[in-house]
């Protein structure tokens, strides 16, 4: 808890031109977060909530409309290109689809060596040793070196993607739906690998997933996103076991399985980021909607410990009555 966080995002905004040309698509609309060293921060939310855009902003793969990202206290937006390139070694990403994110024409040895080559790490011999070490670290062996991605199963390809991501010894790994394309029996192998690597390599994770049980398993803290904003945050247990925001409540109760109680079924689909509702952006689908929600945006309020909720039910107005 002491010292500055490894990563801090301050009021990040990413607006795109809407497809019809007229308005704005508010993909990320004012998000602040901190990631402490050694922590896993889970981000959950449904399609279009902005979680993947947020990940790309944090890594500065795309430029924010406004807001700052501090890595080790340094504003990565203010970095000169040469310095930024060096800092990129500290932050890497693993994508959902290991089929799409590995170049089919490159051998596994070249795929994993590429970041080392680009950043000129060590001598060619040292790099080759390093590639072999990385393969072992992710549970593959030397026989994989000369083979090509199509020769591997989904789980093995994800191991290759992870080996590439950790090649430069980053401090931060953004995992964007890393196990969503995998079968259950393979999913657990990869989750175990990620948990193991984190402690062995002193990593910190931002773990993005739509699967609440996966996020709960790996995360220390969890953020819930809806239409470009964080509507609830707290420890994994707080958020996913005792959800406070009506959206989180619905999300948790929607998980299929044996009944734990009556299910909250939300009406309709999430609105488009091109047409964000006035007031609380969740109000048209909220089962607990109040008059104030229709016209006034709720503020994020602390609700004990590090937990925060952006909902009028917990705002100062609610406590008056």
């Amino acid at each position: 808890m002491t010292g500055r966080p490894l990563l801090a995002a301050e009021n990040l905004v990413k607006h795109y031109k809407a497809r019809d040309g007229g308005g704005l698509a508010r993909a990320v609309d004012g998000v602040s977060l901190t990631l402490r060293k050694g922590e896993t921060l889970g981000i959950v939310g449904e399609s279009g909530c902005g979680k993947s855009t947020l990940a790309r902003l944090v890594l500065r793969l795309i430029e924010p409309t406004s807001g700052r990202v501090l890595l080790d206290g340094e504003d990565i937006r203010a970095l000169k290109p040469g310095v930024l390139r060096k800092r990129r070694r500290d932050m890497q990403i693993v994508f959902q689809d290991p089929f799409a994110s590995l170049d089919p024409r490159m051998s596994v040895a070249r795929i994993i060596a590429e970041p080392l080559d680009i950043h000129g790490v060590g001598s060619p011999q040292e790099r080759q040793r390093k590639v072999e070490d990385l393969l072992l670290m992710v549970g593959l062996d030397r026989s994989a070196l000369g083979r090509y991605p199509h020769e591997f199963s989904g789980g093995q390809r994800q191991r290759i993607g992870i080996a590439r991501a950790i090649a430069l010894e980053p401090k931060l790994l953004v995992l964007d739906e890393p196990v969503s394309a995998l079968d259950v029996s393979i999913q657990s192998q990869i989750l175990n690998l990620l948990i193991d690597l984190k402690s062995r390599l002193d990593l910190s994770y931002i773990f993005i997933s739509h699967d609440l049980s996966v996020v709960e398993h790996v995360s220390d803290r969890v953020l819930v996103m809806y239409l470009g904003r964080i509507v609830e945050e707290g420890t994994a247990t707080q958020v996913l076991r005792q959800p406070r925001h009506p959206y989180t409540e619905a999300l948790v109760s929607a998980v299929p399985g044996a009944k734990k109680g009556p299910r909250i079924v939300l009406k309709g689909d999430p609105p488009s980021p091109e047409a964000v509702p006035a007031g609380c952006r969740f109000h048209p689908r909220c089962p607990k909607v109040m008059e104030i929600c229709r016209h006034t945006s709720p503020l994020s309020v602390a609700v004990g410990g590090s937990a925060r909720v952006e909902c009028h039910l917990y705002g100062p107005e609610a406590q008056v009555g």
Partner: protein
Amino acid sequence: MMDTKPALLSVRGLSIGFATEEGPIRVVEDVSFAVAAGETMGLVGESGCGKSVTAQTIMRLLPSPPSRIEAGSITFDGQDLAQADEPAMRKIRGDKIAMIFQEPMTSLNPTMTIGEQIGEALLLHRGLKARDAKPKVLDMLIQVGIGRPEKRYAQYPHELSGGLRQRVMIAMALICGPKLLIADEPTTALDVTIQAQILELMKALQRESQIATLLITHDLGVVEEMCDHVVVMYAGRIAEKAAAKELFAHARHPYTAGLLAAAPRNAKRGQTLVTIPGTVPPPGKRGQGCSFAERCVRALPRCRQDVPPLTGDSHLAACWNPVP
């Protein structure tokens, strides 16, 4: 047998092969199960286990060649679909048996309006004129929870969200009042709150219509919530077959037990998850004996030699050394 009600669909000893460049391979081997009216049977397993091939063979949707029914029967409503020719199947598909798929966008016709697509089966199977089909289609849209049906009737698939498209698929499937619905991963492509809407809709529709459902999924949570009985498939064979409650309370096959234990929802936070080592052997490389033996913590020498038969009273497992 576990089936107390008369079976509407009864699959017996079904084996399916494919012709490949490397010669013929078996992808489904000796699969038997039955589904009664009003019941939901889950067909679960991981990629490549043969669950979708089984479902598509019941509908006779796989081109032959390369696919071939090598043994067994598929009795539906007194008729053996394994022996049925294409004209006979065309009469059944979309009428008595309907199917919904994982990705509605690829199974809807992008050039037809929603209304025309849903009504098509009525024109084909009931000989209705388009104008007579329309009120039935509008009713159906309301039944599947689509608001403003007049507006939706005239829209095209790309104008709808994923959840609405899946509702349209369900409307298309149910328009002729089928006796059997085959749902192949119907909610896998949907967000969790939309998935919840569709699962609730499927349950409500089944309560009203007594339709029999064969639900193909990889998601054990969906099975637990929706199914009366479950068939677990592994490498083309049935590993375990039981009432859903029994299966979740006490899995007998080590593969099922492993799958249940591997799910993070059944684990302590941050602890090492139970894994099933290795990967599913591809068809043609399944060796002799039990296909799961190489990955199984309970394997005995015998498991690598003889294929275990599916045994048990109402709770069946194909295992020489089942979980006690």
